[in-house]
């Protein structure tokens, strides 16, 4: 598999992809879904504002209504009541197919069209929008490159000739094809093997930082939520928002018992992975120990301490001791609370 190299290239060149549409704010107001012949709402008066350009992760136990809530945003599931406002425009009643052409959609089952080539799959929305052939072709090549699939090698293949991870890359490329402002992702990496999943997650995070779409990402995997979310909405039964905040806020100050149980043990250990060394105060000078880059996290520093290092050098800026790491964590906790 051609892997993250093209993502790296993207970041270095800065905007090698013609990405003109940045994210738009999504406002969900009293969004409710009740299925016929049931006595309880599946989603009950859901209120949430998703800031433009951020990745918001809906996380919660299965059956809590998180997927239903997400699917109401592009009205694959029609809300029973409530309002959906995207970029200031009420789209609750606008024609569903037009709304959806401006919203990227990625699902766990991928849903590539098996009778269409990879290139034709990616070209789906541009074709629906009536783009010119040349423009569509150029865009398809650009996107396949973006997700790390060589267009000349993969463009003419069919979905079943690709691995699961490659298929989901195509799924992401297809969702981004018409440069939508909003991206909805329903456990997109849930069906891939653990190694591929981690790689796709990291690539997606890098991609999202570059493209700055507004992303609504559904998962039941709290680790994934921590890794990908700018903000996390912890949901419980009927899509009740237990807490809505940054990963650090949720780890350091769980708002309710349910959030606490979802965060689970070892919140501090998990926080290690979220704090970058560049935000930590260091003692001056370098000591006798391994060196990490500024972009590394406290987790990597912790790894160093566990394997016997007394101090960790951070670039040439200074060095970190175990006590400094402890105080960095506790001050992050306080800062978030």
């Amino acid at each position, binding site marked *: 598999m051609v892997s993250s190299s093209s993502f790296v290239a993207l970041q270095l060149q800065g905007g090698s992809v013609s990405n003109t549409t940045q994210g738009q704010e999504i406002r969900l107001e009293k969004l409710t879904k009740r299925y016929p012949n049931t006595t309880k709402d599946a989603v009950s008066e859901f209120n949430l504002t998703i800031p433009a350009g951020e990745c918001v992760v809906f996380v919660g136990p299965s059956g809590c209504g998180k997927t239903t809530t997400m699917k109401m945003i592009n009205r694959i599931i029609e809300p029973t009541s409530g309002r959906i406002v995207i970029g200031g425009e009420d789209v609750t009643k606008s024609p569903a*197919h037009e709304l959806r052409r401006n919203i990227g959609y990625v*699902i766990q*089952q*991928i*849903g590539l*069209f*098996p*009778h269409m080539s990879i290139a034709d799959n990616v070209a*789906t929305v541009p074709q629906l929008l009536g783009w010119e052939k040349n423009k569509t072709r150029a865009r398809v090549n650009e996107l396949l490159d973006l997700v790390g699939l060589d267009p000349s090698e993969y463009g003419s293949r069919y979905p079943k*000739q690709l691995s699961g991870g490659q298929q989901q890359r195509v799924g992401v490329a297809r969702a981004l094809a018409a440069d939508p402002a909003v991206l909805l992702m329903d456990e997109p990496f849930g069906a891939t093997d653990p190694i591929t999943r981690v790689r796709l997650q990291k690539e997606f995070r890098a991609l999202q930082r570059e493209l700055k779409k507004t992303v609504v990402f559904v998962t039941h995997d709290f680790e994934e939520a921590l890794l990908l979310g700018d903000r996390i909405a912890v949901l419980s039964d009927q899509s009740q928002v237990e807490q809505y905040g940054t990963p650090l806020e949720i780890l350091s100050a769980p708002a309710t018992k349910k959030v606490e149980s979802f965060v689970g043990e070892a919140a501090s250990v998990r926080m290690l992975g979220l704090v970058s060394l560049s935000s930590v105060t260091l003692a001056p000078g370098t000591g006798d120990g391994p060196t990490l880059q500024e972009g590394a996290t406290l987790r990597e520093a912790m790894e160093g301490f566990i394997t016997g290092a007394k101090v960790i050098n951070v670039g040439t800026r200074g060095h970190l001791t175990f006590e400094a790491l402890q105080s960095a964590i506790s001050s992050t906790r306080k800062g978030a609370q």
Partner: protein
Amino acid sequence: MPKALAQPNLTAGSMYSQSARLIFKRHRSLIIQPLLILALSAALAITLSRAHLDVIEKVTINQKFIFRAIQDHLILSFASAAVILAVAIPAGILLTRRRYKKFTPIVLILANIGQAFPAVGVLIIAGILFGFGKPIAIFSFAAFGILPILRNTIVGLQEIDPFIIESALGMGMTPKQALRQIELPLAVPVILAGVRTTLILTVGVATLGVFVNGGGLGTLIIPGLKLNRELVLVTGGILTVIVAFTMDWLARAAEELLRPRGI
């Protein structure tokens, strides 16, 4: 997927022979079947040309009569198949749309009844009620053979992975676009299998056309039986088999050609 793609360093020659072998392997039955049909036809022609025919046999065993019977038989089969296609495929599509789904069981029951009724009975009652001739034969056969295509159209559309349709709609296709661009192409193999079954079925029942003055190969079989002329009877039977085999071959060739790549 073909192995050839995974081995780019094959020489052109061996790649050609490999793909030729591959084509033969995949289409073996498509290549062998017409040879069998030709052999059967030749055997029949030789037998008939060497046979000593009596006066009664000479009425039917002659080129003009046989060709006319085959022609009528093809007309009966193709026309009833066309009627079936025109009715069953649109009906199958409608019955898988959300609004009409509830009618699916009742329509399938009707189609089952259509097939369960003895074809001869339907044909003769229809003949008595509406008069004799080809048109009435064609419509009776159509009622008889509607089930396979109808059922296969419904099944072919129903068994598409619902997430493929969800993602088509999620991309912003209208339901009509999703039907035309995604659902129908994916259902084509199953629908065509139904078409093949129906064609062979209609070739079979078209031998009954003789009972309502519709012509066809029944004009050899029935007199052959009644007048105790085995040669005439067997000729009619073998010709029916040849026509059915040919139809089957054509339909399978169509299935190969029209099957979307990638599935």
